[in-house]
C-alpha cells in the first residue's frame, strides 16, 4: 500500500511542476499558454546536453532554468505582448502556433530521435522498496518551489500586484503597480519553472520534440482540476492525480489512470469550469 502511494507522490510532483507555469501565467495575464508544453521539452533538451557535457545533473538543472529564463526575455515580446487582451481561445490558438514553431526548430536542430537524460544518483529505500534519488529530488524541488511561489503570491507586495492584475488590470495600475513589469516577471518565472519540469521529465521519460503534448495535456488536467490560479489546489490535484493513477495501476491496467484523468478534465471543463478549488470563475 505504501509503495504505490510514494510512487504516486513522486509522479504527481512532476504534474505539479508541469502545471505551475501554466497556472501562474493564465491567472495573471489571461493567457492559456499552450506553448508551455514545448517550453518544458526545450528545458529537457538543455538539461540533456549540459548533463551529457558536464556529467552533473545539477548543472543540467541550473542550465535549463537559466536558459529558459533567458529565452523568455525575447519570448515575452513574441508571445505575451502581441496577445494581451485577446480572447482566451485566441491565446490558445496563438500559443499553439508558437509551440509548433518551437517543435519545428527542435526537430530541425536535434532530429526527432528519442533521448533520455542519463543519471546515476543512486536510490533511497523505504520499507524494502527502492526509489530513484532523482525522482525524490524532484519531489523535494517541487515542495520547495511551490512553497516559495505561494509565499511570493500571498506574502509579498509583488504578489498583491499579481493577484490584483488578475482581477482588474486598470485598477491595479491606478494603485501604482507596474502591470507591464508584473506580466514580464510572471512570464520569466513561468518559463523558468518549465526548465525545472523539463529536467525532471527528461530523467524519467524519453522525450522528442512532439513529446511536448505529454507535459501539456497533464498541465491542463491539473490546472483545470485545481481551478486556474489556485496554488494549494494545484498541489492537491497534481499529487492526488499521481496517487490515483498509481493506485489504479496496481488494480487495473496502467493506462486506465490516464483515461480517468482525461475524463475528469472534460467533466470539469464542461460542468465546473471554475475548477474544484477555484475561488473565481476562470477567465473566459
Amino acid at each position, binding site marked *: 500500500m505504501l509503495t504505490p502511494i510514494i510512487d504516486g507522490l513522486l509522479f504527481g510532483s512532476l504534474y505539479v511542476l508541469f502545471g505551475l507555469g501554466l497556472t501562474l501565467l493564465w491567472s495573471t495575464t489571461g493567457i*492559456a499558454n499552450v506553448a508551455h508544453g514545448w517550453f518544458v521539452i526545450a528545458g529537457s533538451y538543455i538539461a540533456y546536453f549540459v548533463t551529457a557535457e558536464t556529467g552533473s545533473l545539477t548543472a543540467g538543472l541550473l542550465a535549463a532554468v537559466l536558459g529558459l529564463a533567458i529565452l523568455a526575455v525575447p519570448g515575452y515580446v513574441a508571445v505575451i505582448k*502581441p*496577445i494581451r487582451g*485577446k*480572447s*482566451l*481561445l*485566441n*491565446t*490558445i*490558438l*496563438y500559443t*499553439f*502556433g*508558437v*509551440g*509548433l*514553431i*518551437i*517543435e*519545428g*526548430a527542435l*526537430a*530541425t536542430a536535434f532530429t*526527432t530521435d528519442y533521448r533520455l537524460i542519463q543519471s546515476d544518483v543512486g536510490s533511497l529505500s523505504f520499507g524494502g522498496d527502492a526509489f530513484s534519488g532523482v525522482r525524490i529530488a524532484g519531489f523535494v524541488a517541487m515542495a520547495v518551489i511551490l512553497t516559495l511561489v505561494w509565499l511570493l503570491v500571498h506574502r509579498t507586495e509583488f504578489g498583491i500586484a499579481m493577484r490584483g492584475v488578475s482581477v482588474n488590470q486598470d485598477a491595479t495600475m491606478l494603485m501604482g503597480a507596474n502591470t507591464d513589469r508584473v506580466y514580464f516577471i510572471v512570464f520569466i518565472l513561468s518559463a523558468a519553472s518549465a526548465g525545472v519540469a523539463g529536467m525532471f521529465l527528461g530523467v524519467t521519460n524519453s522525450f522528442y*520534440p512532439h513529446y511536448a*503534448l505529454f507535459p501539456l*495535456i497533464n498541465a*491542463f488536467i491539473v490546472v*483545470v482540476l485545481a481551478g486556474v490560479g489556485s496554488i494549494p489546489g494545484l498541489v492537491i490535484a497534481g499529487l492526488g492525480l499521481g496517487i490515483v493513477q498509481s493506485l489504479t495501476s496496481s488494480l487495473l*491496467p496502467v*493506462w486506465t489512470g*490516464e*483515461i480517468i484523468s*482525461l*475524463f475528469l*478534465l*472534460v467533466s470539469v*471543463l*464542461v*460542468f465546473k*469550469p471554475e475548477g474544484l478549488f477555484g475561488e473565481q470563475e476562470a477567465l*473566459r
Partner: protein
Amino acid sequence: MRWRLLSLITVLAAGAVAPFLVTDSILRFAINTLVMATIAVSWSILARAGQESLGHAAFFGLGAYVAALLTADGGASIGLAIGVIVVGGVVALGLALVLSTPLLRVQGAYFALAMLAVAEIFHRVALRLEFIGGQAGLLVAGIDSPLPTYHIEFYIIFFVTLLAVIISWRLKNTTFELATAALRDNITTATAVGISRVKYQRYALLISGFLTGLSGAFFVYLNQYAQPNIMFGIEFSLDPLVFALFGGFYSVVGPVIGAVLVRALDFYVFSPLLGSGSIMLYGGILIVAVLYFPRGITPLIDRGVARLRTRLEERGERHSPEEEQT
C-alpha cells in the same frame, strides 16, 4: 438557377478528367489535399456556428477505425468501400450527437479544450485496445477496381469534398446562417429573441462530425494502415484549423483554398528544405492569422480584386494620383 447547374457540371467534368492529366505523385498529393480540405470545410461549418474545435481527430479517427474494422478481412469492392465510408460517417455523427449535449454547455476555449481532451481519450484507448490492433494498428487492403487505384480514390474523395462544399454553401442561404450570425454578433440579444445557441451549434457539430468521419473512413483506404498515432494524431485536429484560418472560414471555398495553398507550400517548399521541421510553417500561419487576418486571406483577395477593379475603372475615366491613395 441555370448558371449553378452549369458550374456544377463544369466542376464535375474537370474532376472527371483531372486524374488523366497529371502524374501519379501529383494525383496522390491532390487526394491527400482533398482529405484535408474536407476536414477543413467541416471544421469551418462548426466554427461559423461559433465553436472552434481542437479535437476533430476524434471524428476522423473514429471513421477511419470503423472502415478498417469493417473491411479488415480483405479488399473492398468500390460499392462496399462507398458503403463502409458512409457507415464511418454515420458512426462519427453518432459520436457528435453523444458529445453535443455535455460539450455544448460551454463555449470558446472551454469547448476547444474539451474537444482536445476527447480526441486524446480516443487516441489513448485505441493504443490499448487489442481487437483493433493496439499500438501495432491494422492493415487494410485498398479499393479493388478496374480503374487504376489512384483514379478511383480521387473520384471518391473529390465527390466527398464537393459534398462538403455544397453543404457548407447551402447552409449560407438558410436560417442556420442567419441564426449563427446573430449569435456571433451579440449572443445576449440573439438569445433574447429566441435563437437557441445549443440547437444551431448541435446541427453544425452533427454535420461537421459526419463529414469528418467520411474523410477518415476514406483515408483508411488511401493509407491502407490504421494506427492510433496517425488516425487520432493531433495533426488531424490542428492542420484543418490552420487551413481554415488561412483560407478564411467565413467563406465557403476559403478552407479549400487554404488547404491547397498551405499543403503545396509545405509539400514542395518547406518539407524538402526542413524535413520534419516544416511544422514551423503551420505554427507561423496560426500566429499570423490570429494577429493579422482572423478572417483569413479570402477577404484580402476580395479586397485586392475590388481595389484593382476600381483603380482600373478610375484610370479609364480620369487620372489623378492624389485620389489613388485613398
